Each structure stands twice: as C-alpha cells, then as structure tokens.
C-alpha cells in the first residue's frame, strides 16, 4: 500500500492547494458549484491524506476504504483531492465540464478513485450502506464514508437510509454532514428547517458527533472516535461555511452554483499563496 498519510502539519498546505485548484477549475469551466466545494475541503483532506486507507495506484483494491460524495455537485473538491492524491494528473483538472473530458459536472466512474456517481441528491448514503454491508459479508475491515449536504438531507431517502444503518449495526459506516446552512434557493432553515439536526440523528439511533469542519484536529478526532464504535454508525455534523476561503462567497447563497471569473481567481489565488 502506498503511503497516503501525510504529517498532520502538512494537511493545511494541502487544503490551500485544493482550494486554489477548485477556484481555477471553476473559472476555466465557467460554471459549477464553488460554495459547497470550498466548505468541504478540510473534510476531504482529513480523509484522503490522513484517515483513509487507500492506494491511488490501485483504485480497485478490494480492501480500500470507500468515500461516497453524495453531494455530487461538489465534484471540484473531489477531483482536486484525487489529483493531489495522485489518482489523476493535476493538469487534467482544467478539463472540468468540457466536452469529452473525464471530469464531468458531477462525478462518475470514468475517474479512477470515484466510488459512486453523485449528482441526484439523496442517493449516496444508501449506496454507502450497501458497501458497508458487503464489507461485513466479506469479513473485510474497510470503512465507508459518505459526505452529505445539509440541503440534501431534505430528501426522504436520506432518512430511509438513516433508519437502515443502525438496524444493520454498521459500525464501519461514517456519514459526514457538511452543515454550511445553505442550499440552492437560500438558507436551509428557511427553505426546509433541519434543526434540531443532532437530535434527529440521535433519535434514529446514530452515534452523533459535532465538529468545526475547518478544524483538522477536530475532524480527525471525530473520524477516530467513529472507528471505535463497533456496532453503531456514526454521523459527524461538520459545521462549515459555504464558500469558505473566499470572502465574497462566504455565506452567499448566490455562490452555490456560480463560477468566479478568471481575473478574480488569479487575484484570489495569489493572496492565498501568500498566506
């Protein structure tokens, strides 16, 4: 197995790199979803460069941990992370959303490392349950992670899956909710109120943890705690900010699905590199 874990101190640098990739990809594509890509950067960094057992040289390795990006519109953060991890060339990132590219608007199996085609919201947690069940049948110790949007939780299927995972005692399953408070039409609490969110999952018999989704230490600690739960799935509610890292995008629902232009991104990337 290739060493994919990097020293804790270097995770922050990865996050900066991935943020700049996301902005450059979107500017080049002239469309796509910056807000929910930027809010999930530290979550993917914690998984792909610290917690998960995976090997970019062997994307089909049967013992690998699996990551399901259920909120598939955040494809840029997944593609940028896969590129930084070595699944695809970084130079390919600029082909996002272009005709004949592997990097589709929403992830699919053309790209090595992509486990599930997200895009239609609400499906991913069910698929993650299937993978976790198969792991139990096969007596494998791989873990399954699913990242869900907080707006995505509106979908009924999420709650069908939420009932099923504790029933099947899926200690090998961790759901992570990107709790950025915003969906497409506006604030989640106005479009479809989610609170009290932690209580909902507790009532569904999940092991519930809440973290600051930008604090790598907190995210990683929660992922470790989840692993220690043998017979119960864990949900990590990661409190985040949509558009994180770009001041004019933060908290603005308009940047759910609006790409920044190239000049703006040039300036943003310069200032990010200086930090």
């Amino acid at each position, binding site marked *: 197995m290739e060493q994919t874990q990097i020293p804790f101190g270097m995770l922050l640098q990865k996050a900066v790199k991935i943020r700049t990739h996301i902005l450059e990809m979107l500017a080049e*594509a002239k*469309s*796509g979803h910056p807000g929910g890509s930027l809010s999930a950067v530290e979550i993917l960094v914690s998984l792909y460069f610290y917690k998960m057992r995976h090997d970019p040289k062997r994307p089909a390795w049967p013992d690998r941990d699996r990551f399901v990006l259920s909120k*598939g519109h955040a494809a840029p953060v997944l593609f940028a992370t896969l590129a930084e991890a070595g699944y695809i060339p970084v130079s390919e990132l600029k082909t996002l*959303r*272009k*005709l*004949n*590219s592997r*990097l*589709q*608007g*929403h992830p*699919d199996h053309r790209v090595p490392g992509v486990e599930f*085609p*997200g*895009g*239609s*919201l*609400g499906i991913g947690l069910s698929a993650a349950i299937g993978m976790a069940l198969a792991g139990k049948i096969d007596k494998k110790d791989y873990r399954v992670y699913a990242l869900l949007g907080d*707006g*995505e939780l*509106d*979908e*009924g299927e999420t709650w069908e899956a939420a009932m099923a995972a504790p029933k099947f005692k899926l200690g090998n399953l961790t759901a992570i909710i990107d709790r950025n408070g915003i*969906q*497409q*039409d*506006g604030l989640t609490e106005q*479009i*479809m109120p989610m609170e009290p969110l932690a209580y909902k999952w507790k009532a569904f018999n999940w092991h519930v943890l809440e973290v600051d989704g930008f604090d790598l230490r907190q995210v990683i600690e929660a992922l470790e705690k989840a692993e220690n739960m043998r017979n119960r799935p864990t949900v990590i509610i990661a409190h985040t900010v949509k558009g994180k890292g770009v001041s004019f995008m933060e908290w603005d629902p308009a940047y759910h*699905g609006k790409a920044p232009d190239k000049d703006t991104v040039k300036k943003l990337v310069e200032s990010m590199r200086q930090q």
Partner: protein
Amino acid sequence: MFGLMLVQMSSMRDALAEALLELGSKDPKLVVLGADTSVSIKTSLFADRFPDRFFNVGIAEANMIGIAAGLALAGKIPYVSTYSAFVPGKCLDQIRNAVAYPNLDVKIVSSHGGVSVGPDGASHQTVEDVAAMRAIPHLRVVIPADAPATRVLIEESWKTPGPFYIRLSRPSVPEVYSSRPDLKVGQVKVLREGTDLAIIACGVMVSEALEAGESLAKEKISAEIIDSHTLKPLDADTIVSVARKTGGIVTAEEQNIIGGLGSAVAEVVSSSYPVPISMVGVRDTFGESGEYKELMAKYGLTSKDIVRAAKKLVASR
C-alpha cells in the same frame, strides 16, 4: 422567411414565470410548488408576488408531487416545477399513483430536459423522461418549441383539466413563433407546407427542423415541417393525413428515440397508413458535460442530422 425569425433567442423559464404570474393573478386557485430550484427556474418570481400560494418543499421531489396531489384534491390547481432529471426522476410512483391514476389537476413543469442542459452532465440531463411520461395513462405530454410557445401552452394547460407533463429546455433557444402563437393542446402546428416528406419535431428540435427545411428546399426537396408540441394525446388525424400526402416522415426530438416522439408517430402511422419513418434523436445513450451546441452536434441533434435523414429517406423511395 423563418431564417429571419430564428435569430431571436429567448428563455422558456422566463416565459414560464410570466405565464404563471398572469394566470396567478386571474385564478386564485393556482398555486406553485418548488423543490429548491425555484430561483433557477424563476418560479421564485411567483413566490415574490404570491407568497401565500407558493410552497418550497426543499430538495424533496416525491413529497412535492404528493403535496400537489393533495392540493388538487382540495380544489387547487398546482403547478410543480424543478429539473426534469428529478421530476419525474425521483417520483414516478407519486406521478403515477397520486396524480395520474386519480386524474388530478396537477401540472408538472420540468425544466432542463434533454442534453441541452450542458456542462452539468448526464446526472442532470434527461433522455428517458418522455418515454416514461408517455406511458402513464391520463397524463398529457407537452414539449414547447420556444418561449412564446411555452407561454401559450402553459395557459392551455391551465384551461385543460387533468394532469400534464410539460418539458422545457435550460438554454435560451431560437424563437420559432412570434409573440402569441395559436397553439392548442393535442393539435400539431404546420409551419411549412411540403410534398416530398414531412419532418415532425418537438421542443428545441423544431427550430432545427425549420432550418433543415430551408436547406432541403435549396436542393429541391419539399419538406412539410410540423411542430408536434403535444406528444400525448398525439394529433393522429393530421399526422396520418400528412403521411398519406408525403409518403415519408422524419421525426426529430431531444430524447431517447426509444419511446419518444418518433415512437408515438410510428404507433399511429403503422396501423393507419404505413410509410418509412426515420428518427432523429438520442440513440439510447446518456449525455455528458459540454456546451449546449457541442452536445447537440455530438448526439446527432442538429439541422444537419435532420437533412441527412431526410435525404436518405427520399433517396430510398
């Protein structure tokens, strides 16, 4: 003549919003539901004007259709709207059992149909929705050619009791019609008379068909161009008489040819007056990311593809 008119581009979503605003002020029974895409689809304009008659259910399409059924049962006329990948994608059962089976007055307006959706890719494009909706009894299936047609056909759906599936396109599209075309649900519109063959199209393919008609005319092939905006109930009488007159049909649609407009035309023509039918449409494949025009070219959905099919059809006779 149509060459000049094709220059004007406009948005079906704007037309939808305008129609709903106008109908909403006329009819207090009209209500609108959205599923977290209402800013994109512009039904948010209705929400601004009539906040008491707009319901955003979040990203919960199945729930939206079920709620609409209840509203209709209690005397309202609900217009529900989101992307066509998710309605019908997420809620075939609710459409079938809660809306169509009891024949309720629910109007489903699905935007972002076909592959013209563009860079979002296959998960947000539809090739299968039309076949699925055509196969549900009671449901009328309508695909307007442009923004003016959208405006009129939305009004027609309000005047016509019963459930509708109305499919719109995401990009701005060439205007086929002037401001208020005279369109009736269940009646085709003949846009150009011809004798050698008929080109029957729906949705964005109507403007492509008109362009094809002009190219063919230059090569002395006289094509009758027909907008069959209503796929169900299909205007069988007119289509059969056109088959009789021209002896050959090309259909053009922006969805899988399995179960779409071509199939619908074949269903009536084959039993009444069989003629060769050549189908231009998506050939049983998912779409992908790309720009609107690039995708139309890659998937064989341009005027050139229609011309090629037409010439082959004429030559084979």
